[in-house]
Each structure stands twice: as structure tokens, then as C-alpha cells.
């Protein structure tokens, strides 16, 4: 049997105005390129759960679209919401040729009936425990329409096989992904991922390091992006992990929450571990906008310490990519300038501004639907984080769209990029200390 695993990778954007603006802005283009070039870790994990004797191809959807569909006995897709329609179109083409199709991933898990209209089987929940059964049934020509995980989030991360990084054409990627945890305890209203795959769990450090080492064996200069929602929730695990990373010459990136800044020892370990950047969801700089965002109002309580946190992390040479959500219920037309001022004054090396997005299945989606504020029932190709799909409370849709364009222009232009780089260098240089007598002598000056 020959199986094609088809990855729906990349960044999507429907707004023509933002698309035209975005391509001219270096800060936006750089991060877009990185995201666009990340492989689908979910499919590589399925490949690892595939029994010997079954041939596996890992293919990027863009290659399938522009070339041949390939000669497969089964194809499997993993898709996010923004790419769902593209996935369905491609799935329909395979099925028209008589090739059975399986669709999984977050979107199919949330809307299995919808995905089932374009698939012979839908994988609902975490794929690892379901995949061997799907393959058995496919080989016997007896695929069932739905394969559902008994209990969401019950997959034991210690027991899964390491993803098949060896299937990738490494030269095509500038980062490879490793997952160290699933879920996030913060439970933000807008988050599609943190609760759907069950309770928060970490992968044992020893197993994580096996995956890291597998990548290092394939790649001379590895750059790893942790595919986590919130990496350092478990501080005991985090210290063990960071000490192990420090023994290796590997650069890496991850997502965390702002609480790490309160732990100087952890920050020192982070800096020594090769971590280049952490992405933190600050979400807003307005207490009104943060109010009620997560169940415990945790982010609201952290806000006053945002600037100290950024300085504490960046001073150690680990840059911060700060994320802000626009269109929150407390936001007004003044919000855009407030976010700009905060980003510039705090000198985050990088920032990411997106609009509030009601992904299907989230508490946010259901609330906005109940309040009659969604701009349609189905807008999956607009769930890009940059396209507006709802009526904001404190401004018009047009205000929100124009505000996002304003922030793109203000934050991602070359002059501002250079200024932020300079601030980061100054922080890092301060951390290094003054030149030593030996340094000055080396230049020919007097000690």
C-alpha cells in the first residue's frame, strides 16, 4: 500500500489591501516566510505510527496542486481552518480518481460532519492512536466514516513514536518542529487549540531530546520551533529540558506566557539553552480589553508587568515576539495607537498584530453567534487572523480593518525595524558588560 500524507502548510490572507501592504513590509514578510515553511508535524507523527511495509510520501499541498496528484492507495490530509476549503477541493479531486481520503486535524475534529462530505474517513481527535486502525481498515477496503478518540487528549505523549523527520526534504525548510506539550491551562476564550486536544500534558524530556537529536543528525545547523501552545507551564520539567538543550548546539524558538519573566533562574537557563526567541501573547495593553479574556483573568493581572518582563527576557539575549489581538470587546478606535506606542516604547524586537478570530468550536465563536455578531455562519477561508469575521463592540468593521492596516504600516516598516534592532542590541550589549582591558588592547588602544 502506498500512502500520501498531504500537508496544508502556509499563511493565508483574503484582504487585498493587507496583502498589498504586507508584501512591502520586512517585519511582516520575515515572520510570514517562517510560518509558511513549517512542515506539518501531525502528519510526520502519523508517518511514525505507520507499520513497516507501507510506503509513505510526505507532500506539501502546493506541490500537489502544481504537479501530479500522485499514485496513491490512500491519502491523508491534516488541515487548519483557514485551509479547509482548499483541503476539501483537493480531497474531492483524489476521490474523483477513486483514491480514498482521510481528513484529520483541528478543523476536522471540530466539524467532522463537514469534513466527512469530502472524505471517506474523518479522524476526530489526536491522530496517533487512531491511525493504525485507519490503515488496517483502508487496506481491507473497509474504511468507516468516522474514527473518534475515546477520550479527547488521552494520547500518552511518552508512548508515541518520534515523528519521521527523515521524510522531509530538509533543504526546503528553515525550521523544523518538535512538540513538547499539548494544551494550555490558561483557557483563553478565543483559543482553538488549547482545550480541544484535552488537558495540558508534557512529553518526557528524554523523549523530547531524542526528537531534537534526530533533527540534529539530519541537519548541520538545526533551528527548532517548539510546536507548543505554552511551553514552560511545568517549571520542574522546564528546568530539566533547558539544561538538556544547553548541552547541545541548537538554536530554537517557542511560545510561552509572560510568567517566565518572574523566574530569573529559568531565564538564565533559557539564555544558555540556545533559545533565540519566545513568542508571548500579551493580547492587549488595555485592562478593559483584557478583562474576561481567560477564565481566571490571569492575563489582566499580568499586564502591569509587561515592560519589565520584556526587558528581563531580552536583556539575556532572548528576543521577544509580542502578540496583540485587535477587536477585543474593550477595544476602541484609540486602541491602535495605544498598541503602537506600547510596542515602540517597550522595544519588542518583533511583534505580531492580528484580529480577534472566532474559530469554530471556541467559546468566542459561540458567544458571538449568540450575540448575532458573526458576519456569516461559515467563513473558514477568512479565519486567517488578519481578516475580520465579526462586528466589534467598540468600533465598526471598517475601523478594525483600517486599524490593522495602520499598525502594519507603523510597526513593520524599515525605519522602525532598525530602531527595534538597535534597542535589542543595546540590551544585549549591556548584558555583556563593558569591554575588558583585553578587548581594548586587541583594538590597539590602551588598557
Amino acid at each position, binding site marked *: 500500500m502506498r500512502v500520501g500524507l498531504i500537508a496544508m502548510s502556509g499563511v493565508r490572507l483574503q484582504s487585498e489591501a493587507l496583502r498589498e501592504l504586507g508584501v512591502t513590509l520586512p517585519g511582516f514578510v520575515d515572520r510570514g516566510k517562517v510560518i509558511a515553511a513549517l512542515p506539518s508535524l501531525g502528519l510526520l507523527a502519523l508517518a511514525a505510527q505507520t507499520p513497516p511495509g507501507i510506503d509513505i510520501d510526505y507532500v506539501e499541498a502546493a506541490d500537489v496542486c502544481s504537479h501530479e496528484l500522485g499514485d496513491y492507495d490512500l491519502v491523508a490530509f491534516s488541515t487548519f481552518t483557514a485551509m479547509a476549503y482548499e483541503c476539501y477541493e483537493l480531497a474531492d479531486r483524489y476521490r474523483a480518481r477513486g483514491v480514498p481520503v482521510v481528513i484529520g486535524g483541528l478543523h476536522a475534529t471540530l466539524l467532522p460532519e463537514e469534513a466527512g462530505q469530502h472524505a471517506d474517513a474523518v479522524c476526530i481527535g489526536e491522530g496517533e492512536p487512531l491511525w493504525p486502525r485507519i490503515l488496517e481498515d483502508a487496506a481491507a477496503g473497509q474504511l468507516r466514516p468516522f474514527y473518534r478518540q475515546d477520550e479527547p487528549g488521552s494520547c500518552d505523549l511518552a508512548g508515541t513514536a518520534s515523528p519521521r523527520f527523515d521524510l522531509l526534504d530538509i533543504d526546503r525548510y528553515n525550521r523544523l518542529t518538535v512538540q513538547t506539550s499539548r494544551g494550555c491551562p490558561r483557557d483563553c476564550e478565543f483559543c482553538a487549540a488549547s482545550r480541544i486536544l484535552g488537558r495540558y500534558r508534557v512529553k518526557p524530556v528524554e523523549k523530547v531530546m531524542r526528537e531534537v537529536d534526530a533533527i540534529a543528525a539530519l541537519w548541520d545547523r538545526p533551528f527548532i520551533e517548539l510546536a507548543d501552545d505554552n511551553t514552560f507551564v511545568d517549571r520542574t520539567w522546564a528546568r530539566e529540558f533547558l539544561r538538556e538543550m544547553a548541552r547541545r548546539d541548537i538554536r530554537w524558538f517557542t511560545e510561552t506566557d509572560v510568567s517566565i519573566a518572574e523566574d530569573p533562574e529559568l531565564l538564565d537557563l533559557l539564555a544558555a539553552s540556545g533559545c533565540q526567541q519566545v513568542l508571548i501573547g500579551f493580547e492587549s495593553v488595555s485592562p478593559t480589553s483584557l478583562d474576561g479574556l481567560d477564565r481566571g483573568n490571569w492575563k489582566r493581572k499580568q499586564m502591569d508587568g509587561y515592560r519589565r518582563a520584556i526587558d528581563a527576557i531580552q536583556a539575556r*539575549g532572548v528576543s521577544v515576539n509580542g502578540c496583540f489581538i485587535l477587536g477585543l470587546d474593550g477595544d476602541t478606535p484609540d486602541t491602535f495607537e495605544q498598541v503602537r506606542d506600547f510596542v515602540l516604547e517597550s522595544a519588542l524586537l518583533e511583534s505580531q498584530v492580528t484580529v480577534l478570530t472566532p474559530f469554530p468550536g471556541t467559546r468566542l465563536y459561540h458567544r458571538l453567534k449568540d450575540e448575532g455578531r458573526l458576519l456569516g455562519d461559515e467563513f473558514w477561508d477568512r479565519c486567517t487572523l488578519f481578516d475580520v469575521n465579526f462586528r466589534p463592540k467598540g468600533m465598526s468593521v471598517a475601523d478594525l480593518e483600517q486599524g490593522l492596516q495602520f499598525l502594519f504600516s507603523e510597526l513593520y516598516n524599515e525605519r522602525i525595524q*532598525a530602531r527595534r534592532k538597535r534597542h535589542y542590541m543595546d540590551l544585549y550589549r549591556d548584558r555583556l558588560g563593558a569591554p575588558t582591558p583585553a*578587548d581594548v588592547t586587541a*583594538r590597539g588602544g590602551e588598557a
Partner: protein
Amino acid sequence: MRPVPSESEIRQLVAEFARVPPEGLRADVDLFSELGIDSLEALKLLAWIERKYDIRIPDHQLTSLNTLDRIAAFVQQQPGPEDSRRGGSAP
């Protein structure tokens, strides 16, 4: 005239960041697109150079110092610390 840092000394520093043997580092190779130093490492390298030679790189040159020969030429053209104190480059 005061002595300036040698190219081989700067080569050693850049090679350390690029994780390549100093002798294998071509002077005109693009450190970022060809040797894979990412943008953050590039900033750290430039911060190291500023600190080591007690100089300051103008913001508009942060992206253009992308080869060993450009970095070496820039460092070698800078006034020393004492010259700076007399009104040379910005602190």
C-alpha cells in the same frame, strides 16, 4: 596612527558565530543568506563587535554588514575609544 584590529582577529570572531572553521570563511560570503546566521544571531554578532572594539554601528548599516570583509572594513575604519572620547563616533 594607532594599530587597528587585524582581519584574522575579526575572522576568528565571525567564524565563531557562524560555527565554521576560521580558515574556511570566505571574506565575501554572505553570512546570513549563505552561512545561515539568522537575524537574531546577526544582531548578537554585531553587538559583540561593538562591545569588543568599543564602537557603535549606525542603525542604517545594521543590515549591510553582512560579509567578513564589510565587517572588517567597517571596524578598521572606526576611531579607537580615545578618539571617540574626543568627538569621534557616537558612544
